[in-house]
């Protein structure tokens, strides 16, 4: 599987520049003390990962990989592992930068706040990729893009519509028992989500004909 992970990172090399530019932009914003864009970095990393799917599809990499030993399974697993590695890498860099940058403005750095933001970001990112990857494996990147776009749009409209009728506070209260353990809960549910998503993708890949 290591080989396939290397391949995904090699595919990202063109897009690493985008991440670096964003990082520089982020630092500049941080120094001037204006807005916090740290939240978008992990999301950008997912976008970078998704671009690797386009490269794969263009040369039918998944079909070729299926001719290599254990390639059919490993290219899916590798995709997940590479994504997680990238998210952690980017998040760690953002976190370190956040701490450094906030030390420019204040003496009392709120470490817990920074940590919580990061956990929240990682969870959000993992939620997105866990839904997207099986769709990409099922329909191919081109069609998956459209499906995901429609889904996001649909959820937005539906959500907005439902919010008129439902009291959000009530629902949040349902989760109040998690009050103290929500960090752990988020981490555990991310792992569970990833596992389920990966299993689904593997099933799809196993059945696929190229």
């Amino acid at each position, binding site marked *: *599987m*290591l*080989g*396939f992970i*290397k*391949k995904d990172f*090699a*595919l990202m090399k*063109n897009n690493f520049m985008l991440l670096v530019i964003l990082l520089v932009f982020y630092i500049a914003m941080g120094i001037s003390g204006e807005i916090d864009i740290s939240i978008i970095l992990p999301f950008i990393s997912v976008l970078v990962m998704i671009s*690797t799917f386009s*490269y*794969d599809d*263009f*040369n*039918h*990499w998944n*079909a*070729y990989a*299926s*001719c*290599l*030993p*254990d*390639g059919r399974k490993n290219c899916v697993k590798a995709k997940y592992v590479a994504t997680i590695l990238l998210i952690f890498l980017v998040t760690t860099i953002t976190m370190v930068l956040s701490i450094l940058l906030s030390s420019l403005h204040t003496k009392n750095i709120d470490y817990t706040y920074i940590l919580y933001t990061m956990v929240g970001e990682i969870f959000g990112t993992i939620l997105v990729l866990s839904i997207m990857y099986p769709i990409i494996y099922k329909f191919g990147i081109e069609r998956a893009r459209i499906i995901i776009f429609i889904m996001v749009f649909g959820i937005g409209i539906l959500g907005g519509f439902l919010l008129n009728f439902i009291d959000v506070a009530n629902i949040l209260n349902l989760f109040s028992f998690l009050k103290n353990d929500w960090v752990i809960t988020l981490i555990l549910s991310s792992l569970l989500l990833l596992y389920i998503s990966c299993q689904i993708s593997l099933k799809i890949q196993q*059945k696929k*004909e*190229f």
Partner: protein
Amino acid sequence: MKNILEVKNLNKKYDNFELKDVSFSLPEGMIMGFIGENGAGKTTTIKALLNIIKKDSGEIQLLGRDHLKEEKQIKEEIGVVLDDMFFPEILTARDINRIMKDVYKTWDSNLFNQYLEKFLLPSNKPIKTFSKGMRKKLEIITALAHHPKLLILDEPTSGLDPIARTEVLDLFQDFIQNETCSILLSSHMTTDLEHIADYITFINQGKILLSKTKDEILEQYGIVKCREEEFQKIDPKDYIRYKKNKYQYEILIENQQEFKKKYDIKTIDKMTLDDLMILMIKGEKSC
């Protein structure tokens, strides 16, 4: 002699095409040319062998082992070149080397680099900057660099100029210098196969029309050219296909010697694989 590849009654049905009871086998140490028109089922058969499409039924053995039960071990020992399926083209040959080191236990970086030098392929340029011929060569040396026992190649010479084709065919013959190594290669360039192939398997509309040694085909089969009245005298059992042209009949026969004994027709032409293919596909059946 052991068979390195054995296909028995392979079936695969699509809406508008099907492989029907495809059977053939390739003995160890030999090169088999897999010929047929575009769309005859060459690629489908190859994909079924490699389990990148699922067969409906049939038995396939590669290297003497079931292709599904021991898929992983088999794939360690085979090299493939497929039409239009490869590494993403923004990668470089160096990337491929790095990746494959961890994919195959037996990947030979030195050999891979030697091949790159031999074929003047740059190791640090993205594949997308390569010409079609360079790309094909890279695909072929990638398939060779883990010392496989069996090469399965779908149209490996298509798009290559005559010089590159000669280089590639040389590479294949180098490969089988080791007598346990074998090659299955599909091609519609029958001239490639007329030289180096030991066996010819001919597929048309999803069915195997014949699978024999090439020498047998080229020496025994023949094309008889005759007039209408002569044609009428020939027993339909004695020919495989015929084609009526403006001035003559062309008849494909299976055994020149026997035909000569039985009939008094002098013009029996030596046949090429192209002639065979054309008569088999375009000619009328005897009954």
